[in-house]
């Protein structure tokens, strides 16, 4: 029997409180994915057409530098959302994301969602509001990281 992703998605903190109609629209753009440890979910400069809600496992966000190799900027885990480049032109990833351990996630088709948001501004507002909170939290965290508070 085919099991819909709706109940699983409704449980995700990122989507909590979304009205049923909008959740249905998202379910239509979603599928389950699985990555083994070491596999990349996305690579820098590739086209960004999706985002992930991590259900299980852990993912490292990395930036590659020629002299120092890949640097882990942040790790994400259960319930975290990965990727917002699909929202911003030119829709290319700005970093790599690699599964540190076996990772299961829901992937949402960003192209599909962008067109749905164009037709339904309420859905667009709901999604952007939620992404804005994630972006704000990560910006604050980055500022704190930049301060290198443990150095002195």
């Amino acid at each position, binding site marked *: 029997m085919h099991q819909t992703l709706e109940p699983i998605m409704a449980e995700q903190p990122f989507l909590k409180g979304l009205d049923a109609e909008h959740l249905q629209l998202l379910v239509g753009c979603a599928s389950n994915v699985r990555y083994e440890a070491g596999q990349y979910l996305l690579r820098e400069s590739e086209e960004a057409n999706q985002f992930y809600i991590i259900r299980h496992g852990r993912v490292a966000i990395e930036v590659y530098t020629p002299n120092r190799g890949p640097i882990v900027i942040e790790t994400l*885990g259960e319930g975290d959302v990965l990727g917002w480049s699909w929202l911003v032109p030119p829709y290319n990833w700005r970093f790599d994301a690699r599964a540190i351990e076996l990772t299961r996630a829901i992937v949402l088709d960003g192209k599909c969602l962008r067109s749905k948001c164009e037709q339904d501004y309420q859905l667009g507002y709901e999604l952007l509001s939620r992404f804005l909170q994630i972006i704000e939290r990560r910006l*604050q965290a980055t500022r*704190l990281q930049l301060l290198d*508070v*443990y150095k002195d």
Partner: protein
Amino acid sequence: MKTDIGTAGPGRQTEPTLDDPILPRMFQVRRIFSETADSFSCELQPSDGEVMHFSPGQFNMLYVFGVGEIPISISGNPDKPKLLVHTIRSVGPASKAIRRLKRGDLIGVRGPYGTGWPVKGAEGNDVVIVAGGIGLAPLRPLIYRVLAEREKYGRVALLVGARTPGDILFQRQLERWRGRLDIDVLVTVDKAPRSWRGNVGVVTSLIPKIRFDPATTTAFVCGPEVMMRFTAMELEVRGVPTSNLHFSLERNMKCGIGLCGHCQLGPYFICKDGPVLGLDKIKKLMALREI
């Protein structure tokens, strides 16, 4: 000699006098060992055999003869006071001189001073302990005490942030605590090589990953002041009452007993009214750049 120890707060009564409050007691070094590349622990035993009892969160003034005196939080187990343990970062002449001491060497100790963590006040509550860098050291006695009386508390979580994996204090102990089923231990680092399989990110990013009932949670926080401010914001946003947030502050402590005023923060002497203070008392003061 009898000395009145000073007062800082408005309307505060004069404290009882102490005998020779500036005179250190002699302790012998039992063991000194590295914790990380730039920090170490030293175990001391009283030369006169009289153990020093202390409350979690209190500090001592450690005096290296001919070099100087520094305030250092006690990092040992309050229920095993025979061994006085301090964990120190080697940054200045006195701390570096302590690092060079050998077994049997003498060191002067004044204390214990200051307020401790209000452990009793947290009974019945969920407990969230947030440590940044060397800030785990003053929190360790609190963790020992909470775990020794585990049945008195609700959920207990320990969140630890460090600069790199190599800078994580008490790693073996953290692993042992993580092995217990009655405490959540989460560790994160700001920077890590690819070989690190743990969390990377600031310590505040761990807060959403733990379960606690904000209204009945007591939080104990120690680390760099900026990190404590961010932690307070995150916990307050989640609904932890300001009066349940407790910080351990660091200031330029000299006398340790509220006489000299070097560590004054507004109406408080951190050495005497602190180092542990509730956020409700210091929130406005922490935002003032002039002090």
